[in-house]
């Protein structure tokens, strides 16, 4: 039996503010090497769950184990260090740093995680993503697709165990959607990482037919909207 990459049990999170309703998430387990899709309509807590999985947010209740570590028990500092080394995060906004070149944007990953920067790793990723001639370009000189590839390369730089992608296919046409999922999956496989995608886009299900699916609904009993 495969060991688990992800295990969620009786997890709930409540944003600060008197009016906010707690978000509760169904229990879920993901074996290592497998992929999962968190599916649900906009505002049902998909991004919140991804932030919980990345130890960006800390749940008020429940257990949350990633790669065998109970991340709810980590201190803030330890959670930052753990995230830098374990998680590859692809936010919905590509968020490349405008003042840095493509190469520097990639090297931001080891800098932030306090790891030794490896220029050859950056070159290798750029080659793999067909961006070798854009190493010295600034983000504004890239197309949307190229920017997404840089963001993917940056998420993969530190060889994460778990890749979390938030709405990676939003605003993409069918062909671009399939290409993006294919690229993320192949890069995650290259890094030997499991992949969790949060999306409301049903096309992702077709692109990753073998992935486990965690459905969230806007129902108040399970996962009210954030």
């Amino acid at each position, binding site marked *: 039996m495969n060991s688990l990459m992800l295990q969620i049990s009786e997890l709930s999170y409540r944003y600060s503010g008197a009016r906010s309703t707690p978000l509760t998430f169904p229990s879920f387990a993901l074996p290592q090497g497998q992929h999962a899709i968190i599916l649900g309509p906009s505002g049902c807590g998909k991004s919140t769950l991804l932030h919980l999985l*990345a130890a960006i947010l800390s749940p008020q209740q429940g257990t949350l184990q990633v790669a065998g570590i109970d991340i709810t028990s980590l201190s803030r500092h330890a959670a930052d260090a753990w995230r830098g080394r374990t998680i590859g995060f692809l936010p919905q*906004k590509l968020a490349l740093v405008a003042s840095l070149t493509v190469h520097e944007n990639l090297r931001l*990953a080891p800098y932030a995680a306090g790891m030794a920067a490896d220029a050859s790793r950056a070159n290798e990723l750029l080659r793999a993503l067909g961006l070798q001639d854009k190493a010295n370009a600034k983000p504004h000189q890239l197309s949307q697709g190229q920017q997404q590839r840089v963001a993917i390369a940056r998420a993969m730089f530190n060889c994460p165990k778990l890749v979390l992608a938030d709405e990676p296919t939003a605003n993409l046409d069918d062909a671009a959607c399939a290409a993006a999922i294919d690229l993320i999956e192949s890069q995650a496989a290259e890094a030997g990482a499991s992949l969790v995608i949060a999306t409301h886009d049903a096309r992702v299900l077709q692109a990753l037919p073998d992935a486990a699916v965690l459905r969230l609904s806007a129902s108040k009993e399970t996962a009210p909207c954030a």
Partner: protein
Amino acid sequence: MRLNAFSLALKSLRHKPLSTALTLLLMAIGIAMMSFVLSASRQLEEGALRDAQGIDLVVGAKGSPLQLILSSIYHIDIPTGNIPLAAQAQLAQNRLVKKVIPLALGDSYAGFRIAGTNADYIAHYGGKLALGKLFDAPLQAVLGSQVATRTGAAVGMTFAGSHGLARGGEEHKDAPFTVVGILQPTGTVLDRLVLTPVESVWRVHEIVNGIDVNDKEEKAAMDEERELTALLVQYASPLAAVSLPRMINSRSELQAAQPAFEAAKLFRMLGVGIDVLRGIAAIVLLSAALSMFVALYNALEERKTDLAILRVLGASPHKLMLLLLAEGLLLTTLGALLGWSLGHAAVEVLGRLLSNDQNLSLSGAIIAPDEVWLAAVALAVGLLASVLPAMRAYRTDIATTLSR
């Protein structure tokens, strides 16, 4: 280039060239004003102290004591008048007096004052010959280093003095001086003087006025009327300070002025202006700090997503805080270096402009000890301006920022 807080801060600053340049400029102007005021006032004060060092009293004609000090020690004002030659001998015999140095002024050469005096004056300022010898006869001249450099005069050369202490006076062509020596630089008023025996000053005016110096009767009559401009006095004991000035001032034709007292008075008067300049510089510096704060704060708003991404990639809140502090410190350091260079360049330019007046000596290469404080002030300004944005960066809410 290796990525670290400073290289990232530098790249971020270069990404907004206009905003960075304006903040830098404001900071540089504040620091430039501060360093200019500190360096120039310090040099003027030190120069004034050096020139007055060892001179306890100046005795001259009645008038403004400050004018007497300015004309006899700093050679930047017209003398109050003349005093009888006999006063020198009378003072020299006083047991409270250690040394009396005579000064006879009235003429100039190429804008530099010709000072009739004796070898004691040169020794008092530590003057040493670079070339030639000291004067030992009337109409021989020893040039201060600055005079020699500026006029290009050499030993053996002759020149005619001009009447009066400013340029453009009538030349005494019938009584030319011969340069017999050139002094090494001393950093004192000596560098800006043409030194000659007191007798030279008398001789020039005797020749000009057509008096036959070989006629014994005429010479005897002249000797009785001989005058000096001032006497520089060194006390034999501190007790002299109590009684000697009062004793001299009680004589109707003489006044005694104390350089320490008059210089302090002068600097008190100048101090008001210097304080105003310092105040203006402080306001500019404060504006620079505010401008830097606004620039960093606004930039923070624009870079919230960048900071959130850094946190997602594993950067601790401390790392983000350090990044913002590095940006503030980098701006401050660059602004301070630029301002300091500008301030000293301005002192150098002012020194060169003033060197035409041969009164004041200023150099951009001299650093006032107080300027060390400027570095600390600049650092404090940078920290103050960046600490609040850094605190905000520390508290970056990743989840909210990424969800927007």
